């Protein structure tokens, strides 16, 4: 039996790796992947708490998070494709039209 605090610490480490990736990378697609990694680490924390408290609702929330992540991936990737079609790049440093 592993103490649940190790799962929580692992999920925190993965979450912060994802946050750092958003600051580190310039590519829109990789930033999107970092967001997926952060969603997954939060799912891990939810399931750890569900196991810790013997409560079903943590697992149900994770189920809904996975489905919402699928919907988010579909819309987000469509937007990235549209950006690439219009601007021929997905580097966020070159997407400065809003800034003027």
């Amino acid at each position, binding site marked *: 039996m*592993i*103490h*649940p*605090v*190790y*799962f*929580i*610490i*692992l999920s*925190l*480490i*993965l979450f*912060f*790796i*994802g946050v*750092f990736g958003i*600051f*580190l*990378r*310039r590519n829109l*697609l*990789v930033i*999107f*992947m*970092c967001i*997926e*990694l952060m969603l*997954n*680490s939060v*799912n*891990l924390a939810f*399931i750890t708490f*569900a*196991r*810790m408290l*013997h409560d*079903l609702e943590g*697992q149900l929330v*994770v*189920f*809904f998070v*996975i*489905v*919402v992540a*699928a*919907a*988010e*991936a*579909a*819309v987000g*990737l*469509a*937007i*990235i*494709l*549209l950006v*690439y079609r219009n601007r021929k*790049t*997905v*580097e966020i440093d070159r997407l400065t039209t809003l800034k003027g």
Partner: protein
Amino acid sequence: MIEVGFFAIFSTFCIISALSLILQRNPVYSALSLIVAIASIGGLFLLLHATFLAVLQIITYAGAIMALFLFVVMMVDVGDEPPSAIPFHAGPVLVILLLIAGGVIWAISSAVPGIRESAASIDFRELSRQLFTTYVFPFEAITVLIISSVIGALYVARKEES
């Protein structure tokens, strides 16, 4: 004892592939490392007795969503980032994030109680019953959400008529 071994294997895979996700220059390799990370998180779900969600994680995340990602990465064809692409603010951000992470880990490491063993364990039947009785409205709402998001994605990515 065997649980500890599997936890060590899965967590090591997880952290290494997450680091490889943010340090690779080529987005295709980043996507492949994310698949490894997600599959190892699915293994950790199994260690936490969440069998259904582990299966869902492998099929939906590592299968469907990541296939979509790889498809778009190969369509966009961005190539490698130049080595000088690391932004100047990465160093201070890393320091701040390490401070926050260290503080949070120090704070929770003594506050989390152990797992209480009880007779009532979470099983698949109970999960399905909750999903279709107490949570039937969120379940139906999420079907509407996913249908509308797919239609929206098709509309956004359609070919412009000139």
